């Protein structure tokens, strides 16, 4: 009897030991996994911080020399070493704004059509075609813009635009000639095509997450497709939608090569959208390789810092808008 008892205790003890060691092993691998994911997350912050710090260090000479006037003056003269970023800042914001103005409604429209109206047979080909747009390298857009799109706009579209708006007070200034084909509007249009797939594929994906029961309930109450989209689909997916739009805006703000080819790279500010302009990233791409002299290089890096800050501000505004939306929805 006693023998059996000791045997039992020994087995139990052994089992307990095994269990503990297995659990310890599991705990150990959990810890490793935890650390790895933590490292991955922190490394993003580290890289971001390092980029920001090195930009500040690189831009310091220019910011010290020009102070805040670097942002507000529209001079760019490597010969006298006087630099101001106003023209490229304005160009960046305007091209991105027009691009979004065109791409957001069209992108949403495509997504709504694909998820609500499109026959199943057509859905895949259209989706794939739009995703292919995102796969085209920007240099290809640039060359296509320079050799085909800009001349096409110059010959066929801009003359009629100039004519049509020539007597409308504000629009006459916005669409003033001469039209060279390349300029702010052309690059905005190309940007719109480039960011379209981001908006479309993200919004299509989030539209698909809307529970069918919600939509069916609405249709059952006699909602039209537009009312379903407006009152059910878009409110339900607003976070994802805004994410897609922000992704697109980020690309529009930072896009370099395509814009460089078609914007005309003129440092002068013009009221006309048809006139050549410039953007921050185009300016950096154009001049960095041949920038000789500390202040020149530093001013270009300062441009990069400004682009960084602009993107940061835009993202913050988006976050804030989202927060407001959620609060409103919560009430």
């Amino acid at each position: 009897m006693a023998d059996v008892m000791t045997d039992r205790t020994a087995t139990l003890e052994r089992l307990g030991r095994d269990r503990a060691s297995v659990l310890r092993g599991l705990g150990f691998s959990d810890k490793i996994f935890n650390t790895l994911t933590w490292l991955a997350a922190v490394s993003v912050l580290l890289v971001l911080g390092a980029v920001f710090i090195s930009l500040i260090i690189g831009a310091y000479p220019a910011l010290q020399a020009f102070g805040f006037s670097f942002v507000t003056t529209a001079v760019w003269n490597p010969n006298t070493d006087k630099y101001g970023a106003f023209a490229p800042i304005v160009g960046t914001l305007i091209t991105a704004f027009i691009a979004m103005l065109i791409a957001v409604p069209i992108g949403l429209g495509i997504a709504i059509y694909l998820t609500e109206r499109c026959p199943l047979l057509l859905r895949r080909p259209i989706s794939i075609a739009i995703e292919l747009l995102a796969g085209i390298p920007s240099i290809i857009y640039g060359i296509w813009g320079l050799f085909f799109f800009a001349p096409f706009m110059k010959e066929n579209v801009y003359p009629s635009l100039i004519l049509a708006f020539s007597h409308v007070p504000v629009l006459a200034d916005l669409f003033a000639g001469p039209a060279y084909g390349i300029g702010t509007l052309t690059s905005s249009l190309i940007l719109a095509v480039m960011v379209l797939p981001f908006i479309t594929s993200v919004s299509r994906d989030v539209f698909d997450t809307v529970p069918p029961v919600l939509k069916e309930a609405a249709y059952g109450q006699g909602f039209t497709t537009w009312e379903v989209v407006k009152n059910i689909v878009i409110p339900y997916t607003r976070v994802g939608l805004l994410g897609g739009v922000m992704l697109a805006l980020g690309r529009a703000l930072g896009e370099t090569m395509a814009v460089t080819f078609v914007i005309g790279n003129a440092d002068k500010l013009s009221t006309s959208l048809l006139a050549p302009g410039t953007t921050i990233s185009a300016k950096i791409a154009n001049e960095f390789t041949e920038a000789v002299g500390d202040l020149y290089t530093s001013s270009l890096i300062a441009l990069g810092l400004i682009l960084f800050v602009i993107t940061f501000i835009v993202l913050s505004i988006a976050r804030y808008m989202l927060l407001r939306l959620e609060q409103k929805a919560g009430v």
Partner: protein
Amino acid sequence: MNIKSMAFASALAVASAVVATAAVAADISGAGASFPYPIYAKWADAYKKDTGNGLNYQSIGSGGGIKQITARTVTFGASDVPLNAKELADGGNLMQWPMVMGGIVPVINVEGVASGDLTLDGDTLAKIFLGEVKTWDDAAIKKLNPNAKLPSAAILVVHRSDGSGTTFNFTNYLGKVSKTWAEKVGSKTAVEWPTGLGAKGNEGVANNVQQTKGSIGYVETAYAKQNKLTTTKMVNHDGKVVEANAAGVQAAAANADWAKSDGFFLIITDQPGAAAWPISASTFILMPKEVKDAAAASEALKFFAWAYKNGDKMADELDYVAMPAGVKDLVMSKWADIKGADGKAVPAK
């Protein structure tokens, strides 16, 4: 094949890859100007066949070349813009010499005007790029071309948007022939242009000019020739009307006084000589006078000596212009200034 032998084989492959990288690292390394890249690449190819030694040239732009040679990350730098004595000293006691030349030519798109039909002089060209001469039938252009039929179309100026040695030499020429240009704009790889639109690279300028009636731009002569652009003639320093071609550039270089130049700081725009093309340019090599790695420097000098000796025909094929023989001899005699850590001259043979 079992796992062990596979592992061994892959280890062997890695090892041989490392050896191969080491062999690549022994190549002559240089970085800089993109303008001479095609001819350096062609020379390097032929040189490798001849001697087995390769060249690794990064065509990253003159500014980048100057930065890299200053940091000594390459054996030689290359720049379309010569450095003055102070800049050479700032780079850590560098020396420079001209390697090969080319010309820059105005290209136009004017209704009814073919290549060579139109003649411009420096002052008029400067006024066009200043935005002072605004139409093609302006009196200044008419005076130079009494027989040409010129439309009253507006002139659109197309310039380079990227920093470029071509822009440096072009604006340098305009500054020499126009006081207003020198005071208002000056000369640099990128300047604040008074008028017109900017296009990226020779191809960008060429394409915009071809597409826009009434436009004028400037590109390298080799590029204009290969793409059959409409070029203008120019009135040169001696008042003669000349065409942009290799002979004109050679004439400009022949009359340039390299021997008296301070460390080969010489820009060959607006040179005297009846046949001299006024907007000629040379591109430069930069090397430190005190080198750490004498063996690598010696390999580089051997390559340049070989290119001077055997490279003229290849340069000609690519529409570059070789340096005159006298200048080559002068350059090679100056290489004696390049010394290793032991104070001995680095051998170039």
